[in-house]
């Protein structure tokens, strides 16, 4: 049998197939096709592996495959868009665990004389996989609300994590060189604890960064296990996943003006002094100008020609997506131009807000990313912000030394009038008071957006 076909040609062709599928993810029109091509390539790869490794006759393999398929289908079948982040986090954890388990399964029978590269990658896959598993599990539990989403902090945390990391690197080398079971078990335990501590200290709005990062790690673990156990396809495809996760991690970090290390170490979170400062400042402004009155809202909307909607995660928490869609429909029926301005970190994962709105039927052509829409605020008559705070806080550009200073924001304040439908005037996740609320052209409607937004729609349609 010509060995080069399964060894070289097949992995290369299938990888190209996966790449073409990803290329089709450029547009919503072709993305369905891209996803299906990916699934087809995966099916071919698995069939080929069944044939090549001669596991057709193993009932255990089929049972495990069936169980896994049922598990995946159950998880994915009914999940709502608001729960998408926890599903992705959970699957990140599955990926990490699978890579670690595969290595653990093969290690007892390892040839001690095996090449150094194979051992190093095996131990690295074991480490990264275990870390991804425990970290993702915590992230998923936090997102699901089974664990408090606020960051866990204690004295000496940084030192502890740094020492654990250093110890991990030493153990990695020791385990690679000595190939002792004890060292391997120690590094698994260490990686699990590290992932746990790392994820526990990360809070709600930092989730987009953390999920992207764990997504990347799950790919890296798969790639390492592929290199270690001689599967070029796993090495290549794992690398694709690793790269995608890294791209998204960087985008999310940029959108928050933070670096990965700062997010993972919980650094630059609100210090009590900056919060007080912002509070004082806000208090001072309140005295000067009386904010506009809510009774003007129907008039404002009636006179408006261009309306921009700014959704935040608060909208999803209030389950107000449908209410927002209804308001958009009412405005459009009255001949207004309505667009939605989406900040990259408005949800709990990259692209989350787009999915939440698509779920209730908001057309994708109405969703605009920050970079494309920001110059339009100045020509907008009315902005309706629902459950958004930090992503439109002018303090990000005006104040120095706050957690959001330098973060790119939606320039909502430039619009002629702004209606804010948030739960209360408390600051967002960053803890920085929103100076927007004190501007004279801003009308605030505090309360549950699932009630305040329909109320606006009702009063507007009555007027029209």
């Amino acid at each position: 049998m010509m060995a080069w076909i399964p060894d070289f040609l097949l992995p290369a062709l299938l990888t190209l197939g996966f790449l073409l599928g990803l290329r089709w993810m450029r547009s919503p029109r072709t993305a369905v096709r891209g996803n299906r091509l990916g699934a087809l390539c995966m099916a071919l790869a698995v069939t080929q592996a069944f044939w090549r490794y001669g596991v057709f006759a193993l009932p255990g393999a089929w049972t495990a495959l069936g169980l896994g398929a049922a598990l995946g289908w159950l998880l994915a079948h009914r999940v709502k868009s608001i729960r998408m982040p926890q599903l992705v986090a959970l699957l990140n954890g599955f990926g990490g665990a699978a890579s670690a388990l595969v290595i653990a399964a093969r290690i007892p029978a390892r040839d001690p004389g095996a090449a150094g590269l194979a051992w190093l990658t095996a131990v690295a896959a074991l480490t990264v996989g275990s870390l991804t598993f425990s970290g993702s599990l915590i992230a998923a539990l936090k997102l699901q609300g089974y664990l408090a989403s606020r960051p866990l902090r204690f004295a000496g945390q940084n030192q502890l994590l740094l020492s654990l990391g250093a110890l991990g690197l030493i153990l990695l080398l020791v385990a690679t060189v000595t190939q002792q079971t004890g060292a391997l078990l120690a590094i698994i335990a260490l990686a699990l604890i590290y992932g746990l501590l790392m994820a526990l200290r990360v809070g709600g709005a930092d989730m987009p960064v953390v999920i992207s990062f764990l997504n990347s790690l799950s790919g890296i673990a798969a790639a390492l296990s592929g290199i270690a156990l001689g599967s070029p396809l796993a090495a290549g495809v794992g690398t694709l996943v690793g790269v995608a996760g890294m791209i998204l991690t960087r985008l999310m970090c940029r959108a928050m003006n933070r670096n990965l290390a700062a997010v993972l170490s919980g650094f630059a979170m609100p210090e009590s002094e900056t919060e007080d400062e912002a509070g004082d400042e806000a208090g001072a402004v309140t005295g000067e100008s009386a904010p506009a009155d809510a009774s003007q809202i129907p008039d404002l909307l009636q006179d408006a020609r261009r309306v921009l909607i700014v959704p935040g995660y608060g909208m999803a928490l209030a389950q107000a997506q449908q209410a927002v869609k209804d308001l958009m429909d009412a405005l459009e029926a009255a001949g207004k131009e309505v667009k939605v301005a989406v900040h990259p970190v408005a949800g709990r994962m990259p692209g989350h807000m787009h999915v939440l709105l698509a779920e209730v039927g908001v057309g994708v052509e109405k969703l605009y990313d920050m970079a494309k829409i920001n110059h339009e605020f100045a020509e907008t008559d009315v902005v309706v912000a629902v459950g958004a705070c930090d992503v439109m806080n002018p303090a990000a550009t005006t104040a120095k030394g706050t957690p959001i200073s330098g973060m790119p924001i939606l320039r909502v304040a430039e619009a002629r009038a702004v209606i804010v439908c948030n739960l209360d005037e408390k600051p967002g996740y960053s803890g920085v008071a929103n100076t927007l609320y004190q501007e004279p052209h801003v009308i605030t409607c505090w309360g549950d957006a699932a009630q305040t937004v329909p109320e606006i729609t009702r009063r507007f349609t009555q007027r029209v």
Partner: protein
Amino acid sequence: MPAAVLLVFVLACAVLGYRVIAAVPPLLHTPLMSGMNALSGITLLVALSALSHEEPGSLLALAAVVLATGNVVGGFWVTERMLRMFHQRGKQEAEE
């Protein structure tokens, strides 16, 4: 595959992958991530190869098969559901 060839292959994947994936718009970032969940199930291949060896670790390999298959099926299916949501809306709007 010899180590050097494998290394080149992985690097090529990283470079090509970067170019292709960086072009995915924010609109599709959530489906991209769930699709990546499916692709990280590629470990299934490695798990199947581990199963072919009669050894004490085969229970672990079976567990890996379960989880990796969960990734593949769950990842592709949820991505399909999400993308249909985008696509159908797009079509409806165009027809209206």
